[in-house]
């Protein structure tokens, strides 16, 4: 009965809109944040493309639209049409615009051809002021003890659209405070502005419909599903998403004012995904890790496990002293220079083929590059330690090492990683391997036991924390955590990304690349650059997989490995 619709002429891919008097062409559709399907471009998206900031609370580019805060109200006009449905013109020939009587929310209103959006009119300003006054009416003014202070959108817009004097003269609504939502999240319902970002995130992005609103009107309160704590591996993202101080991280709350934190761009070392992040630190102490937006990797999310994987960096038992062999098998403290000279001499004298090198896939590409040159000079058997876990569909990669790909591309790790470990263990037992260098791993937990270590003539270990392997080492070289050095990781999907130091390593501990450079020079006679950028550029020249990449070119967001290296 129904006839197929006549094939419609293809619509142009862009739409001309005018924002505050400036004309701009924007795409007709943009990908839906969750499904990725093309969805009509909204006024908010058009404004973002035009570089026009529209204040908002509930809107978030990575979440489905809710449209509840009403902060993004804008005014608009559309081309006026005559009775014949043809556009009307002004006397000067410009299209006649009919201004809409009511403002609309930019986040949910699609654009249309020729539309004019006004974000700076007195009416818009008045609407924003009114929304802000409503939001503040029942909001506690506890900024001095609120963790969000300094990065609070309510504070931010109060500066721009707020009144100095409150006209709200009534008793505020009281709601639950210190609500224990889950193992990592604390909620203050009085601070909540009911934007529902956290609800949408955990429901639509994580797939854990754990949060919701109860009660009604101004008494509405956020809560978790009764009897089930809010406990998935992504809960801490709700703290970032929360525009106010309602959701706070139990790990971070009350520990530091955010404006005291230095922010250092870094890469999460907890799995092969390589989430971009920011290290928040003050006076050599790390206080928090937060995601840094990168649409090619982690959008703007991070898993809880990765975020909280930093407390070991400040542990009191960090390895902080260089040790060299002392009299009668004992170890004694040493300076770096003497230790590296002695070690180079010992290694130089080791018979070729009697050396094995196990380097962690948690080391940076530059460090693994230097280790690869050392291994080549010593004709050493090499491998890394695999670290497998369970992955998920969002961010967590089953490979818990951040740089397995780099370790393989640089020739350190076997394929699969760890495949050569049994052979190394066997060769030690048979006395063919007499020298073992271990960087960043405890091999006693991976098939090379204390018995084997005791058979060695020379055990060199470098690490940041003490373990059974470092306990047996003849030479102990204290290294640096990821947050204490520069370098790059190659993610499991082949993206090379830079990280920078936020804090200093303790005592004599040094970034591995600093002492490996000296050791490699001593063993090969070559000179190596004394900074990560030079090492990276040299590595990229020498290893086909990295060819064409430069440290500077990696930028803040990293670069994918060339698919078909020349």
């Amino acid at each position, binding site marked *: *009965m129904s006839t197929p619709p006549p094939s419609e002429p293809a619509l142009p891919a862009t739409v001309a809109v005018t924002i505050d008097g400036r004309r701009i062409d924007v795409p007709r559709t943009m990908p839906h944040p969750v499904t990725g399907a093309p969805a009509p471009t909204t006024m908010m998206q058009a404004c973002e493309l035009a570089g026009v900031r529209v204040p908002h609370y509930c809107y978030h580019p990575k979440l489905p639209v809710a449209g*509840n805060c009403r902060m993004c109200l804008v005014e608009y006009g559309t081309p006026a049409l005559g009775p014949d449905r043809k556009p009307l013109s002004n006397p000067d020939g410009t299209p006649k615009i009919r201004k809409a009587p*009511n403002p609309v929310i930019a986040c*949910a209103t699609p654009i249309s051809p020729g539309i004019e959006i006004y974000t700076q009119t007195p009416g818009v300003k008045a609407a924003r002021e009114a929304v802000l006054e*409503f939001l503040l009416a029942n909001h506690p003014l506890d900024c001095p003890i609120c963790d969000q202070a300094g990065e609070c959108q309510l504070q931010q817009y109060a500066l721009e659209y707020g009144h100095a004097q409150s006209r709200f*003269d009534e008793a505020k609504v009281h709601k639950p405070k210190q609500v224990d939502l889950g193992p990592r999240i604390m909620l203050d319902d009085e601070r909540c502005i009911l934007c529902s970002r956290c609800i949408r995130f955990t429901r639509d992005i994580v797939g854990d419909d754990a949060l919701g609103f109860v009660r*009604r*009107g101004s008494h509405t309160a956020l809560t978790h599903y009764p009897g089930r704590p809010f406990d998935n591996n992504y809960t801490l993202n709700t703290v970032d998403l929360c525009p106010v101080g309602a959701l706070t991280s139990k790990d971070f709350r009350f520990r530091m004012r955010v404006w005291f934190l230095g922010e250092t761009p870094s890469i999460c070392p907890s799995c092969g995904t390589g989430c971009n992040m920011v290290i928040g630190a003050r006076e050599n102490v790390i206080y928090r890790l937060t995601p840094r937006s990168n649409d090619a990797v982690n959008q703007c999310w991070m898993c809880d496990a990765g975020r909280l994987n930093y407390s070991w960096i400040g542990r009191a038992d960090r390895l902080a002293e260089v040790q060299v062999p002392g009299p009668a098998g004992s170890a004694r403290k040493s300076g770096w220079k003497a230790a590296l000279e002695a070690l180079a001499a010992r290694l130089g004298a080791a018979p070729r083929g009697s050396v094995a090198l196990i380097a962690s896939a948690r080391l940076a590409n530059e460090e693994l590059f230097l280790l690869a040159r050392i291994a080549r000079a010593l004709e050493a058997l090499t491998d890394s330690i695999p670290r497998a876990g369970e992955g998920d569909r969002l961010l967590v990669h089953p490979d818990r090492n951040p740089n397995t790909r780099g370790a393989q591309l640089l020739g350190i790790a076997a394929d699969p990683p760890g495949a050569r470990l049994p052979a190394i263990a066997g060769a030690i037992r048979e006395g063919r391997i007499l020298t073992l260098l271990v960087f960043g791993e405890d091999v006693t937990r991976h098939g090379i036991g204390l018995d084997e270590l005791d058979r060695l003539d020379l055990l060199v270990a470098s690490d940041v924390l003490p373990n059974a392997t470092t306990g047996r080492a003849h030479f102990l070289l204290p290294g640096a955590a990821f947050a204490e050095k520069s370098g790059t990781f190659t993610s499991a999907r082949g993206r090379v990304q830079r990280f920078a130091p936020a804090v200093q390593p303790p005592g004599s501990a040094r970034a591995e690349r600093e002492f490996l450079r000296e050791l490699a020079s001593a063993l090969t006679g070559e000179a190596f650059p004394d900074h990560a950028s030079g090492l990276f550029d040299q590595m990229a020249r020498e290893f086909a997989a990295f060819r064409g990449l430069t440290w500077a070119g990696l930028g803040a967001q990293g670069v994918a490995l060339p698919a078909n290296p020349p």
Partner: protein
Amino acid sequence: MIQERRIILEHLDRAGYTPDLGCYRRHGGYATFERCLALEPAATPEGQTLSGPEQIRLEVRRSGLRGRGGAGFPCGVKWSFVNLDSDRPIYLICNADESEPGTFKDRQIIHKDPHQLIEGILIAAYANRVHQAFIYIRGEFIEGARILDRALDEARGAGLLGRDILGRGYDLEICVHRGAGAYICGEETGLIESLEGRRPYPRIKPPYYPAVLGLYQCPTIVNNVETLCAVKHVAAMGGNEYAKLGVPGDPGTRIVCVSGQVRRPGYFEIEIGKATLGQLIHDLAGGLHPGRSLKAVIPGGSSAKVLRAGEKYKLKFARPDGKEIEREAALLDLPYDSASLAAAGSMCGSGAIVVLDDSASAVEALANIAEFYAHESCGQCTPCREGSLWMHKILQRILRRQGRPADVDNLERIAHNIPGGRTVCAFGEACSWPVQSFVAKFGDEFRQMTAPPP
């Protein structure tokens, strides 16, 4: 003396009229539906052939019937937004979440003549290719839901529901769904959210117009109980005949609920525009209590702007020659139709007239209304959520004799900052229009109550 014009309420309240199927059929019930089902394709003067359902839709469009839930949107136009040829099911929802204070008409039909509603649903569903309909009934109407369920069982037993209805190959199921006990569940998109099992947060329009993306993201028609009953009478009389009732632009009859300070509050079915507010109050509702004078009328449910006694309004009339003339009318001379009430700055809304006499305090009356809206704001949009409670708190404080001169300005400002596109749904208007109008029209009482002590 004006008389009712009972069409929907024709049999209600008559001695011996019972809500069962047998009684309904004895009074001619379901004959219209059977005729609709039997409609043969018919040719139009333009040479088109219209199927039975198309003919019904045409009649409803011709009738000009406007929705009786409150917004007054033309029913036939609403139906025309539905794409009948999409591959998705089309749903019909009967909105029986009657909650607007002052409104008590739908429940009369449900309790006393449920089969009339079911017949209306059957006709509307058949006309729009609907095979699953819902009656979303206000949560508090427990007995109403039982009555409907009983009536649906009877209809099913008589072959009027289910598969292959009356052997004519049409399938329809009707499901009664009890509401979640909130005023906002009556907002059509909030209702759909609630029916889907979520909080009844009204949806953003665009894109979630029910006719396009309604229940389960399928095309959906939401009609009020009284509207669906009127559809039955449109189908019975024919659209042109129905349109002769009432006034142009607002045809038919509607059930008006008169309450407040009158002697005989109740529901009355009148021909639209053929009775004035004064006739409704005095002739039908028994007038004011002895010795009282009229103070104000809320003409269309508690969210409608209040009209103050003594006000004069300019009404426009179309003369037979088509020319428009303007006439001044006093409050009680206002004909009860949407154009007249709009000219007076208010609305017919849900057809609920609340009468206040000179014993009532405007401040107390408004405080009562504001309390309701503060309690019923769903809390989704900031201005309504915070503004409705704020206004309520100010008014309660004024009633406690702790008012301040700034309160009047504050009430006006808050009520100005909630409506007008600042909220997802019309609740923003509903909660602020009473405040705007009461403060504007009874400013003297508010200023007196908030004046500093001498």
